[in-house]
């Protein structure tokens, strides 16, 4: 099945940012040409890095701060000893319950419009808490000497700059087999389940859809030929309770304490001014709590 007529023309409703968009990769029709990798780098003006491992067709060992999409090449034999060469486009999954958003102390990572997990480079402090928090190894902070500028996290943006301007993501528009699709998440899921039925009828018994329920629903969906673990995709991934507690339990408390402290200081300032007329303002002190994140 190609990109459906409705999907090819589909664009999100600019007036409805709550709408859920997604990308779907039908891995059974991916030919591993890497055109998506090139289109991604070109659109996003990322840097090239020659770090291919030896003895594989895969271009990079993993995603990195400059490489936001990557085709994984998986060579194996199936149960009958027949060769298989699976190709899976890998990038940020734009989870509904995202580890990176949970881990981010500055809210540089947040849930943006259309279900996209958005990274605000201005707010990113390069702490790299997001890296281990991502179950898909899809976000990275540049720790190498490649970049001269400040360390920042980097990951797929689902081409938010393009989709919010009625264009398709760069990888989608370049894919020669139309195996990368983009559209309304619900519609794509319907398509994906129909495709899996078709594949099963063709004899691919292990075909399945990935991303429907995982982490509250991913915005990167897959039609896979084999079970997710074969591709190194986590089965039923969950966020660590400690992480969620840190973000949604401890951080608000911390911020509340910080807020209370600030409030106290403001009161103090007024009180102090009343007491010592002409005293200096505590302007600089307000920034001090940033050290909480070290």
């Amino acid at each position: 099945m190609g990109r459906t007529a409705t999907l090819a023309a589909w664009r999100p409703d600019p007036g409805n940012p709550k709408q859920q968009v997604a990308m779907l990769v039908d891995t059974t029709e991916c030919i591993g040409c890497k055109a998506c990798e090139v289109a991604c780098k070109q659109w996003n003006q990322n840097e090239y890095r020659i770090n291919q491992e030896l003895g594989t067709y895969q271009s990079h060992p993993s995603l990195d701060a400059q490489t936001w999409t990557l085709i994984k090449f998986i060579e194996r034999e199936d149960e009958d000893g027949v060769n298989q060469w699976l190709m899976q486009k890998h990038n940020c999954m734009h989870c509904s319950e995202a580890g990176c958003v949970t881990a981010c102390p500055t809210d540089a990572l947040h849930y943006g419009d259309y279900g996209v997990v958005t990274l605000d480079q201005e707010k990113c402090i390069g702490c790299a808490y997001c890296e281990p928090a991502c179950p898909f190894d899809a976000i990275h902070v540049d720790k190498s000497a490649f970049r001269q500028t400040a360390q920042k996290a980097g990951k797929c943006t689902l081409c938010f700059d393009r989709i919010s301007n009625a264009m398709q993501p760069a990888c989608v528009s370049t894919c020669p087999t139309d195996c990368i699709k983009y559209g309304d998440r619900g519609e794509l899921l319907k398509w994906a389940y129909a495709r899996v039925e078709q594949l099963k009828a063709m004899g691919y018994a292990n075909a399945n859809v990935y991303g429907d329920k995982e982490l509250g629903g991913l915005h990167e969906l897959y039609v896979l030929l084999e079970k997710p673990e074969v591709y190194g995709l986590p089965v039923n991934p969950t966020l660590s309770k400690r992480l969620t507690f840190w973000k949604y339990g401890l951080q608000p408390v911390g911020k509340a304490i910080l807020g209370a402290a600030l409030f106290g200081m403001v009161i103090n300032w007024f009180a102090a001014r009343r007491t010592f007329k002409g005293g200096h303002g505590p302007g600089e002190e307000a920034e001090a709590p940033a050290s909480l994140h070290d």
Partner: protein
Amino acid sequence: MPGLGTSFGRGAMTTSFWDIPNADVVVFMGSNAAENHPISFKWFLRAKQKGAKIIVVDPRFTRTASKADMWLPFRSGSDIAVLGGLINYAITHNKIHRDYVVKYTNASLLVNPNFKFEEGLFSGWDAQTKKYNQATWSFQTGPDGALLRDDTLTNPATVYQHIKRIYGEYTSERVSEISGISVEDFNKFAEIVTSTGQAGKSAVFAYAMGWTQHTKGVQNIRCSTLLQMLLGNVGVPGGGIAALRGHANVQGATDLAVLYHDLPGYLGQPTEAHKTLAEFLDKTTTKQSYWINKPKFMVSLLKAWYGKAATKANDFAYDYIPKMAGNATYSHYDIFQSVLDGKVEGLLCMGQNPAVGSANAKKVHAALAKLKWLVHVDLFDNETGEFWKLDGMDASAIDTEIFFLPAAGPLEKEGSFTNSHRLLQWKHKAIEPLGESRSDGWYINELGKRLKKLYASSTAAKDAPIRDLVWEYDHPEHPDDFDHLKVLKEINGYDMTTGKPVAGFGALKDDGTTACGCWIYSGVYPEEGVNKADARKRGAPNREDGWTEAKKDGSADYLHLGWAFAWPANRRILYNRASADPQGKTWGKVPLVWWDDAGKKWAGCDVPDMLPVEPGKVHAAGVPGDTPFIMKAQGMGGIWGPLADGPLPVHYEPVESPIQNPLYKQSTVPNARTFGSEHDKFGTTAEFPYVVTTYRLTEHQTSGVMTRTLGFLAEAFARPFVEISRELAQEQGIRNGGLVEVSSARGKVKVQAMVTNRVKPLKMGAKLVHVIGLPIHWGPKSGHVQGDIANTLTPQAIDVNVQIQESKVFLGNVKKA
């Protein structure tokens, strides 16, 4: 493309990518389309979605194989054994499409009774001159000169009985012993392919360099055409031979004859023996076919080139055309040999990097060092422009003067590409060329202008072809550029009196009143200002998926007739008359072209590839309304088709092979060419026990000059490597990623080992043969990523028909470095 030309009449892919989804079976053999033609691959995947079986026959499990239903690893160079085995299977299992074979091909014709095929040699072989005398390869004729035939196909002199006898030896067991495909797998494969030998079923064969780059390249393709004709799979929906071209515009380059042995539009190249135009036309025109119009095309070509100077009185300036001398060949490899022999002293090298891209690279380097001058026109300086820096070169001993001229890139120039399915598509300039870069067209136009200026005052007769050459392409508004549409108009053809473009090749004349630069392209510019190559009207989508599929009522414009222009006459599927039975009624699963009884004409959802003649009648050209191959005598497809190395394809071993030919005493192609220079060395299994095959990857373009220089592509595939099986790696103690030395009689290279289960040792009878694969994209000088030149290892052993090198198979060795 003499393979397809000999069989069907035209040297081009018979089908259209848009028709591939109609196939029941797709065979990739000699093609790795997913990697080398990724844009086309969508159509093959759509065939699979619609239930087609995809089979890949390739020494390596490629990205194409990863999408297939069946992968058959086999020994590179045994293609004809496999295809011949399929022919034998089809005949012995009675799977042929008999009506098609009898009515549409020359299978029923009687061959000269003196024809023989013994010990791998056809009758007429002269061991002294290493040439065939083809006198005994003729057809029998009756007293009235008519060809004798036997439609029961039982007469032992019929073409059919000859192929039955010759391929009778190609049993599944024999095929297995030669190719390494197990008997069981081969039979399974044969059953699937030959299941299409009936009306309403079709198989398409896709090939590319994996079939052409052999000393029997032409015969590899010929063999597939035989099989496809026996199965009735040519000219029908979902059938045909998909000849996937090696570059974006290889079809265009061939059509316009950027080759030594042809004139534009496949008119042939005169030799010394053709003293006059009449003699050339008489000796090279296929009678009783549409080719009887050749004089119109040839005279119009001469008018396009020499204008007013070409008159009836001077044989339309036929003398101006260079004639080939006797047996001489002027191919790519002859050029380098001629440089070494001191016959050629200068080379104009445009958009080519032969120092990396040509077989036996060290020999090419030695030849470059002997040049007096080299003009190198390219996007980037590269190994050819800097050959004097390469390994083994002594710069102090080289006197070559090199001129580097910067070329414009594809996006910096206007023009057309003719792609694999004969489609001329216009593209516009996106950006201005960088700095002083100029398009190739600009350089050629300037060269023409300056040569004309140089010889303008000469009165010597030898300079007349330059003085009289029509060369008026300057752009009226941009004095520093040429007008692409003026070139297109000349190619299309125009009326000499009115100056208006002709509507198509039907309007061309042999009296000197029309000019046409390439008759098969005629119709691309039918009116002033109308460029059909730039037309972009697609058929209406009729599927949920957004594409257009064929419909049973023939109503869908699934061949997108309004999108660009396909030669000839915008026909999308060649020989499409074969989609109807001899009476003109559709016999396929979907209609393509049929006889419209009411309108008394051929009609269809494609432009009919047929002369205006009713079934049962014969056209004035000699083509009956019952047969589809209008460029062949009496419209019959050429199962029998004389070429320089035989009238039928038979299995020969490569020049370097691990075995002697198990079928015949004559092991290799008897007249395959090799050169005798000190660089042309050949090896044996004692020193070089493995079969090496070379290939390309998606990520890079040929010698890598356009891709290794771009960071995003350089990172996509960084290093040269060699693919070897786990078994061979274990034998040699090689680990994945380790550095190895791959060698042949010509030299050696150091690359990384890629140890993989995607290459397997082949069991050929009792013998185990290892195959290793080596991509060719890296060179030591240009680009972000570099490596040794794989073509150091490949031999200059070449095909006698088209002079292509055998780089797909040779002997080599691999060792830990």
